Each structure stands twice: as structure tokens, then as C-alpha cells.
């Protein structure tokens, strides 16, 4: 290099880097709206939630103070919350297997139909398209101990109608029944989609191999081939079941005497009826932890058994 030559304004590295940097900036600019929205809607609220759960903040309060883990201690000692947690798990324990297995059973039956198939699909899918809050009101009428059609039928057989929504032992199973009714159609559609991807050849090979009976066909071909579908259906059904709220809010308000109180309803009460936002935040964190552990366990259990084609 000749020392007499004046140095260029920009060093070589800057010039080489410039287009690269510009491209990176353009990329960031395009990704920014989504990133910011995602942060605002999902990430920031979670951090706010964690922060709130360590305070005694009440809605509208001017002053608040940090209480550390006191809210959590209170939650685990709170019989009402523990009860709602137990109720939620019981609800999931009923709704999850029933909605998945019934969805599969209905899908298998509907899949075997040829001409009437679309009719059945519509019938089973209708509950999915309806608004659950509106439907809850309809169920209230259907199950009404004196006015409802169920009562009328039972009367015809000279049987007394149990009060489905006020009897402590019956209320949770009744809510679970409505939850299943709402989920089966959705699960059926997913299973039907899974069934239609199974090659016909496999059933024919199975027929030649001797797996012609319904049980063998199901165990050798249908069930294993539905593995990925089943995993998806189970996870989505579990999430839906954990989120039960509408029917409780409309039909029972957690009653009688907390027999149908579920976690989301308990959180709703604490936050928006009693305005204990800090405590409600702690409950939410606990609920979140349970759901995550459950989902991970599920994914882990499935992943080892499911065959992905």
C-alpha cells in the first residue's frame, strides 16, 4: 500500500458489511410487528402475572406491597381452592378419556357409512358450532327437574328426576357430560380425517394375513395408524377440559357449596368478584404449572409410542 494514497472515507469492512447489515435491519423491521404483538399479548402478561402473584394488589387499590410467597402459601392452605383444583382434575379425568374414546368410536362408525356419512358428520359436529354459553342455558332447561324433557321421560317411567345441577354428587358428572357432548363432534372430525389417510392396501394386506375381524383390523392397522391423530386429539381435549368455565358460570356458579367449583371459576371469583388480583395471579401460576406438567407428561408418554408415517 502506498502511504500517499488518501484513505477512503469508509473502511473496506464497513462497505462490505453495509448490505449485510441493511438486510438484517430489513428482516428485523418485518419481524417487529409480530414480535412486539407477541411480547405484548403473551410474554409481558406472563411476567406481569408472576410479579402480581408476589403482591397483595387489589383492583383499584392505590398502594400495594410485596408479600413474597405468601399468596402461594395461602392458596395451598385454602380448602376452597384445593377443592376446585380437585374438581378440575376430576372433570378432566371424566371428559378427556370419554370424549377421545367416544370421538374415535363415532368416527369409526360414521366412517363405515357411505351415503349417510355426511348427515352423521353434520349431526355430531353441530354442538361444536354452537355457543357453549347459549347451549348451557338450553341444557338447564333440558335438565330442569320439573319443566325439562328429561323429567318428562323419567316421569313416564314413574321415576323421580334427580336435580342434576343442585345435587352435590351429581353436579360435576352432569357438567362433564355437557363437556363431552361438546367435544365428541370435534374429536370425531379429527379422527375421521386421520382415518381417511390410512391406505386401503393396509386393510387388504391385513385381510390376507388373517387380520380380518374388527378387533384385529383395529389393533393391527387402524389404531397404530391413528397414533399421531390420537395424540393431537388428546392434547387438545385435555386443554379444552382444563379450561372449563362457561358451563360452571352459567349453570351452577360453582355450587352447590363448591361442589362444582373449578380452578378457572375460582380464579374468576377471586379476581373479578373479590378483586384479589394478587391472589388470583398466584392461583393462575399454580394452575399453569399443573397444566404444563400434565402436557409434558402426555407428550412424553405419546412420543415414545406413536408412529409417525
Amino acid at each position, binding site marked *: 500500500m502506498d502511504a500517499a494514497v488518501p484513505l477512503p472515507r469508509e473502511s473496506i469492512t464497513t462497505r462490505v458489511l453495509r448490505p449485510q447489515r441493511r438486510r438484517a435491519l430489513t428482516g428485523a423491521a418485518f419481524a417487529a410487528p409480530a414480535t412486539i404483538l407477541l411480547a405484548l399479548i403473551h410474554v409481558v402478561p406472563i411476567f406481569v402475572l408472576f410479579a402480581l402473584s408476589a403482591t397483595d394488589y387489589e383492583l383499584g387499590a392505590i398502594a400495594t406491597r410485596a408479600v413474597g410467597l405468601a399468596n402461594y402459601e395461602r392458596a395451598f392452605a385454602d380448602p376452597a381452592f384445593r377443592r376446585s383444583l380437585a374438581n378440575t382434575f376430576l372433570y378432566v379425568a371424566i371428559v378427556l378419556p370419554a370424549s377421545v374414546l367416544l370421538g374415535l368410536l363415532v368416527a369409526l362408525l360414521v366412517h363405515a357409512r357411505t351415503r349417510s356419512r355426511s348427515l352423521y358428520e353434520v349431526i355430531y359436529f353441530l354442538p361444536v358450532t354452537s355457543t357453549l354459553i347459549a347451549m348451557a342455558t338450553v341444557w338447564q332447561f333440558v335438565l330442569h327437574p320439573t319443566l325439562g324433557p328429561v323429567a318428562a321421560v323419567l316421569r313416564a317411567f314413574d321415576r323421580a328426576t334427580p336435580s342434576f345441577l343442585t345435587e352435590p354428587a351429581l353436579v360435576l358428572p352432569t357438567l362433564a357430560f355437557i363437556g363431552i357432548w361438546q367435544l365428541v363432534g370435534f374429536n370425531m372430525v379429527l379422527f375421521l380425517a386421520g382415518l381417511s389417510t390410512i*391406505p386401503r*392396501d*393396509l386393510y*387388504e*394386506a*391385513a*385381510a*390376507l*394375513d*388373517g*387380520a*380380518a*375381524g374388527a*378387533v*384385529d383390523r383395529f*389393533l*393391527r*392397522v387402524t389404531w*397404530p*395408524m391413528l*397414533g399421531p391423530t390420537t395424540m393431537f386429539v388428546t392434547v387438545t381435549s385435555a386443554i379444552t377440559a382444563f379450561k372449563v368455565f362457561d358451563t360452571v358460570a352459567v349453570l351452577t356458579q360453582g355450587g352447590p357449596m363448591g361442589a362444582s367449583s373449578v380452578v378457572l371459576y375460582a380464579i374468576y371469583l377471586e379476581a373479578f368478584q373479590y378483586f384479589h388480583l394478587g391472589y388470583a395471579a398466584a392461583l393462575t401460576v399454580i394452575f399453569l404449572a399443573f397444566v404444563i406438567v400434565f402436557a409434558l407428561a402426555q407428550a412424553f408418554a405419546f412420543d415414545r409410542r406413536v*408412529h409417525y*408415517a
Partner: protein
Amino acid sequence: MTERGGGAEGVRLSGIAKAFGATQVIDGLDLAVRAGEFLTLLGPSGCGKSTLLRIIAGLERPDRGTVAIAGRTVDHLPPAERDVAMVFQSYALYPHMTVAGNLATPLEMRRLALFERLPLVKHLSPRRRRVMRGILAEVCAVAEALRIDHLLERKPAQLSGGQRQRVALGRAMVRRPSVFLMDEPLSNLDAALRVEVRHELADLHARLGTTFIYVTHDQLEAMTMSSRIALMDRGRILQLGTPEQLYDRPASLAVATFIGSPSLAVLEAVADGAGGIRLGSLRLPFGHRFASGTRLSLGIRPEAFALPLGPEADGPALSARLARAENLGAEWHLHVRLDLPGEPAAIVRLPAAEYAAARAAGLLEDPLTLVLRSRGVHLFGPDGARTAADSARALAAE
């Protein structure tokens, strides 16, 4: 060739008919497959050959007719009880099972009771373990015979096309069925592998001596492996015979044009009333009985044309113009237009040595003189049937 029981009964189809909606796929078909033979159902796509195979397997129910396997009517039996095994075009392996699991399935279905196949409950059976050990031994033996014993723990997705094909074959073999049904098993393999597997299949047939019924649209597969070929078109069998019979004595113009590659030249000819034909200005003697003026078709195989070299110089000759010469290495294909009304196209097959000699002798200059050999010239009547008159003999007699 091991032939079990010569003319013994393998599979007998009588009066089979099958329609899908308004389409008649198979129309009153009769076929007797001998025990131990390698019979190929050959035909263009949509000719009903696969449907016929599926009817034999019991996967499809015929509208009419009966199927008998080893002398036993099986119309009322489900596929698994017909003592047949099938290799599917797609192989149809169970994707979630290992190779060992795939091979064991047909045996498990036969030897274990239903409760011994159910999850969890199966472990309650005291004899299950013993049965499974026996099955595993047989699976290993079959896998060894097919050289897939090192793949037993793999799943189908981890196998190459050729390996999958072998597993499918093994799953069929492990039951020792009396009839193997194969639906275009080579069509998903690449060209080199196809040749290899073709040899292996022919070898396997010779070793097992079991009846093979093989469906293909590839005449090369049919010609190289079959004991007999049933050439099908539109749900009927055009001709049933050995590969040699189909090639050398085609029953009809349709058979003659389908079998043989490159295809034979078809020329319009007119009967001359004295047992011969007129082809332009050329007269060829045949011992036929068509009235003078009847329109006939003359089929000439590519190897039935010769250039007037040495001993081939005599014989009926046609003149032609050379359009294109293709070098296939061991032989040349001359694409020519014959000097006849309508300038029909024809292909001449020449061994490389003959081609070189002809070129040296200047015989490839237009117009070419093509001499008809005695073999590979066929005369077909107005209905397309080959005339009883043996064209080879007729030409040789001249």
C-alpha cells in the same frame, strides 16, 4: 424348472364377470392355472388384470363365476382362508411394525387365539411364548433366504425400495401358501433393481415350486419369468400360452402388436384368390382360403426384415427409404418407410455386425432393398385372427 404335479389343478376360474358401475371390467372369463406354474396376467392398464387377481385373492367379489384353488371352490371363503398370499404394488407393509413384526403377522394371526393377540391380556397365555418362539424361528429362516435378516429390527420407513419389496415377499412366503399373487411388484423399483429382482423372482419360483400368478403391464417381465402368459384386453383373455407361443404364433393381430418390442409392422394386403396375397406389386404365397379381394393384414417382426447380404439375398423383397438409424449397441434399429401405397412405417432390427457389413456394401443407400425372412411374418384375416396358414412355411416354400 420344478413343476409340481405337471397338469395338476392350481387355480381355476370359470365364467368370471365383474362390473364397476356401468363398466364391464371382466366379461365371462375362464382360466385354468396349473399347479406350480408361473402364470403372468399381461395387458395394458385397465384391462382387468388387477381386478382378476383381486378376485382370486378374495378382495373383490365377482358378479358371476367361481374361483377354485387346488380343486376347492373358495367363493365363500375370506381372503385369509384361501391359502393365497399377495404382494401388493405398494408393498402395503405395516409402517409401525419392524420387519420382524411384519413377517410374523400372518403366522401370529393363524397360530395365536384372539385373546393371545390382545394387548396386555396376551401375556396371560402360558403357551404364547412358545408359539412366538417358533414363529420367530420361521421368520428368521425366511429373512435369511431373502437376505434381509440384518434388517429385522428396522421399520419399513428405514428401508430402500428393494428391501421393502423383499419384506413384502417375505411376508407372503412365511405362510407357505399354495398360490402367490403378485400385483406389479416391480413397478416401484428403478430399472437396474428391476432386472435383479426379476431374476430373483424367477429363481424363487424355481426353488419353491409354488403357483405364481403375476400381474404386469411390462411384456419384458412377462416374457422373461413366465411359464405361461395370459394376454388380456378389455376384460378378456386374448391368448393364453408360453412366451414363445405368444411371440411366434400370436393368435391375433392384437396379440402380435402388443407382444414384441419394437412393435411389428402392420401392412395392408389383399387376397389374390389363389391362397396368396398382394402387397403393392409384390405377391406372397400363403395357404389361406380368403376370396379374391379380401382385405388382410400382414404383420412383419423387425427381425423378419433382412438386407440382401450373402444367404439372405434371395426371397421376396420390398424397397424402402431409410428415415433414421438407431444404435442400441449390440443391434441397430432402422426406421424405414416402405415403398407401398401410404408409405407405411416399419422398423428393421439388425445385429451390429450385419449393420456394419451392409454399410460397407453400400446397402444402406436409398432406396433400400429389404428381404423378408421366413420367420416372423404373420397373416391376419379381416377379423384380426391369424390365418391357420403358417406364414413361415409358406415363405420358405417359395
